[in-house]
């Protein structure tokens, strides 16, 4: 056990986490040049393309240190986005130390701080690593100053590296061994293992990723999930090298996997404790919480014939994403579909993209919503996350919406525009701290609904990418809510209905009308687009009729060419949804959700 080090890399997005992981993997020789590819631990195409890590991952790196001893360094890769902060916390709980990676040009950012706080909560050894020192814009002195003043860490403990150029990799490996303590625990105690992730394998069922804190587990043991008491017989345990590698047993200090005939990842709760049925530990490991979705939207197939395909695909997708929930839903305008819950907007984006990409589905998403709370006049309290279930306004005594505390870090020069944006988004109770020369930490309490709408894109835009943002949900607050509908040629498009604050309804409706006007192609007759609250029209736009094709001539030699052209257009139209007599493209539905600055 003294030769094991469990560690993780934490960083603000784009500070080079995956590249550093790649270098560590290469340096320790786990994989040769031939089977190496960039972002080794990001297995999904989406992860590679977006440059973010969505799922946790783990890998064991064998390393002979300068002291002459062989060590096993276990790198637990964590997701890099605020939507997945609970997963991050469980991964960190499985480690004894972290590399806190900071971009030499960008310095400390909001998620640097948020991640540092998480690491501190778990009493982890923190090694600050300044990455990208090869960049011309690198400003190491400033970063050192920030490590001292903003992070409160000893700047002398830092390591400089360029993961891209392979500089400083050995120093990092040595520091992991010298500074991160080996795991504690006793293999003879009752088993206590923390689940930090689970993946679905079509041959083996769920692969549980865990960190063993006490005791040991081997094939044949009957394990018990402490959250719900379910038991399974262990089929196989092992370590993660580049691929899963079977071992006799996992014991205290180990990070590895357990296969135990668990059918879906939804049967496993990240953060739960695994123990043995016949010799359980006295209490679960701390920190478990049930992750609840905060953003909801409906998914519909563009072609109603594809409903069954969508149902099958969601079922398959769900196998690997325990935090995604869905149930049947139906829309007057869009037909049969599903109401889904997500951890955040990025999560929603990812689900949408994976359904389209991996399952080859064309889908339409309704406008995302948060979960509102209504107290009716008879004192019953209901939660509504679907505008279709908006209560009769005459029955509502009180409406409430979830609030968050947003933590932002930005250069001082953007302070004015960001504060203006936050106030526009109904932000209140601001707090401001100068964390260093020219840098500000700003916090606001804001309605979650404003944040999911287009806050993040606009924040990025007004801070020209220099600002960073993180949030926590705090409570429900009373709010003057209304249901805003969108009508296309007098037909209500229920997927575009939104629950909004009354003061924001008109602006939101105007924006939706404008977006739809830009995205819906002109058709043979005039199209009226309206935003309405109940029977009251609050916004409108019009798309003029399309009046003349280039009809030219059409004889024997023209027919096939013309047919092919029309077939192509027809295929394009299949990706549109007929609402009454108007064809609405998928892009129109998406455009309603996009920010002003796209």
């Amino acid at each position: 056990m003294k030769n094991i080090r469990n560690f993780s890399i934490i960083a603000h997005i784009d500070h080079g986490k995956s590249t550093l992981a790649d270098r560590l993997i290469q340096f320790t020789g786990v994989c040769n040049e031939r089977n190496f590819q960039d972002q080794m631990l990001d297995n999904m195409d989406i992860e590679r393309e977006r440059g973010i890590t969505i799922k946790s991952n783990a890998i064991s790196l064998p390393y002979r240190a300068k002291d002459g001893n062989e060590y096993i360094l276990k790198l637990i890769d964590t997701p890099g986005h605020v939507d997945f902060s609970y997963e991050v916390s469980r991964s960190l709980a499985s480690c004894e130390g972290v590399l806190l990676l900071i971009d030499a040009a960008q310095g400390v950012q909001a998620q640097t701080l948020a991640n540092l706080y998480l690491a501190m909560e778990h009493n982890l050894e923190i090694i600050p690593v300044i990455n990208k020192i090869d960049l011309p814009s690198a400003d190491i002195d400033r970063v050192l100053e920030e490590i001292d003043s903003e992070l409160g860490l000893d700047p002398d403990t830092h390591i400089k590296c360029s993961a891209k150029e392979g500089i400083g990799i050995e120093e990092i490996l040595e520091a992991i061994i010298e500074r991160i303590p080996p795991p504690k625990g006793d293999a003879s105690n009752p088993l206590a293992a923390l689940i930090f992730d689970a993946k679905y394998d079509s041959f083996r069922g769920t692969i549980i990723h865990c960190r063993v804190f006490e005791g040991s587990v081997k094939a044949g043991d009957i394990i018990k999930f402490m959250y719900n008491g379910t038991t399974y017989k262990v089929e196989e345990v092992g370590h993660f090298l580049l691929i899963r590698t079977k071992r006799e047993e996992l014991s205290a200090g180990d990070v590895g996997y357990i296969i135990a005939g668990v059918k879906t990842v939804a049967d496993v709760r990240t953060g739960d404790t695994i123990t043995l049925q016949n010799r359980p530990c006295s209490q679960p490991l701390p920190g478990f919480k049930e992750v609840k979705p905060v953003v909801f939207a409906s998914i519909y197939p563009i072609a109603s014939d594809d409903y069954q395909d969508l149902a099958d695909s969601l079922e398959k997708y769900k196998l690997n994403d325990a935090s995604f929930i869905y149930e049947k839903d139906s829309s007057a305008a869009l037909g049969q579909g599903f109401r889904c819950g997500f951890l955040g907007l990025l999560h929603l984006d990812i689900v949408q993209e994976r359904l389209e990409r991996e399952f080859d589905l064309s889908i339409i998403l309704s406008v995302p919503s948060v979960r509102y709370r209504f107290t009716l006049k008879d004192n019953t309290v209901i939660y509504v996350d679907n505008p279709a279930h908006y209560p009769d306004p005459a029955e509502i005594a009180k409406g409430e919406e979830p609030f968050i505390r947003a933590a932002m870090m930005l250069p001082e020069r953007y302070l004015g525009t960001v504060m203006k944006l936050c106030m526009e988004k109904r932000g209140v109770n601001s707090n401001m701290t100068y964390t260093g020369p020219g840098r500000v930490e700003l916090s606001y309490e804001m309605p979650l609904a404003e944040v999911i709408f287009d806050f993040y894109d606009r924040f990025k835009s007004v801070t020209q990418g220099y600002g960073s943002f993180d949030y926590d949900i705090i409570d429900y607050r009373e709010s003057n809510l209304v249901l805003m509908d969108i009508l296309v040629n007098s037909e209500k498009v229920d997927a575009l209905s939104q629950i909004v604050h009354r003061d924001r309804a008109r602006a939101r409706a105007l924006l939706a009308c404008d977006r739809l006007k830009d995205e819906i192609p002109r058709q043979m007759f005039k199209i009226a687009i309206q935003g309405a609250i109940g029977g009251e029209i609050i916004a409108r736009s019009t798309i003029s009729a399309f009046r003349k094709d280039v009809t030219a001539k059409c004889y024997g030699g023209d027919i096939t060419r013309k047919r092919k052209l029309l077939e192509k257009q027809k295929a394009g139209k299949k990706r549109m949804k007929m609402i009454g007599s108007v064809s609405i493209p998928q892009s129109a539905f998406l455009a309603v959700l996009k920010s002003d600055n796209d």
Partner: protein
Amino acid sequence: MAGLYIHVPFCLSKCRYCSFYSITSAQLLPEFVKAIVQEIAFYKDIFSSFDTLYFGGGTPSLLTIRQAQTILETARNHFDISRKAEITMEVNSGDVSLEYFQALRKLGINRLNIGIQSFDNPLLKFLGRRHTAKQAVESIETARTAGFANLGFDLIYGIHGQNLKSWRQTLKKALSFSPEHLSCYQLSLDRKTPLYRQYKKEGLDLSSEKEALDFFITTSNILTEAGYIHYEVSNFARTHHFESRHNRKYWDHKPYLGLGPAAHSFSNNRRWWNKADVKTYLKDIGNGRKPVITSEMLSTEQIALEALFLGMRTADGVKLESFKKLYGFDLLTEKKSIIEALIDNKLVVLKNDRLCPTLAGMAVADSLALI
């Protein structure tokens, strides 16, 4: 019954907007005629009778009387060409004579389609036509003198530099000859043409949607008032009798056989066409091979789409009962809400179990086919 089309791919010069296949050397014309004779023979067991015959091009009036006669006689030898067949030749204003027209009449050609395009000399020059307005007038008068009682004119609108006023004058002039048939085409630019390149290079604008619609509506109004029937997007006939029987076959999915380079044929849901190259054509025929380059079997869905876009180009529209029977698709029930909206917006009407485009509907015929 089927239609027979002969493509004569030779021109003295290329008009700058034209995308039909032709070459500007008539050197190979004699060999071409021999090849056509052989190609006709290839199809003697596949087609049996025709009631329309159309010499198109190119410039079919480059054929000598002797050559035209050879082709016609061969066709009559191999096929049953009905006595009342409509036999059309496209002719170019300017390079024909009274003797030539009289001889054509004797061969049994009973309809001439004269490429006039405009009665405005600067526009004729812009289009790259070799003739003047005066020569066009002479051709028409010569045709009448030769005794042709069925004349069609081709005209083009939407040319750069042409306004509605000048177009009205061209139409008025055309009407003064009481043609039996008029084809009025909106200028479209094929990428392969010199005119397309000129428009691009000089940044000339094609008609805007509104201008094109103005031209289209004005044309229809003027000709309808003059008693013509607007029976297809670009075609007008003095009476139903004078509708181009040959061209109707294209719009009605009737069988047709096209001979010569680039000619298209259709029969039993199959469409095939010859390579657009005279030399390959001659070589293939010389080797006893059909010069067909592509042959496609159309699925029911494809035929239905064609029937819809072709039908929406014609005043007769789409016959709903037979559409349902042939393609298993009941437009009225399956597309109920959109058809109702189209009717409300006066783009289509329902009459005698037909879904017919209105004038405004014809202007968006392609889009109507995509309902």
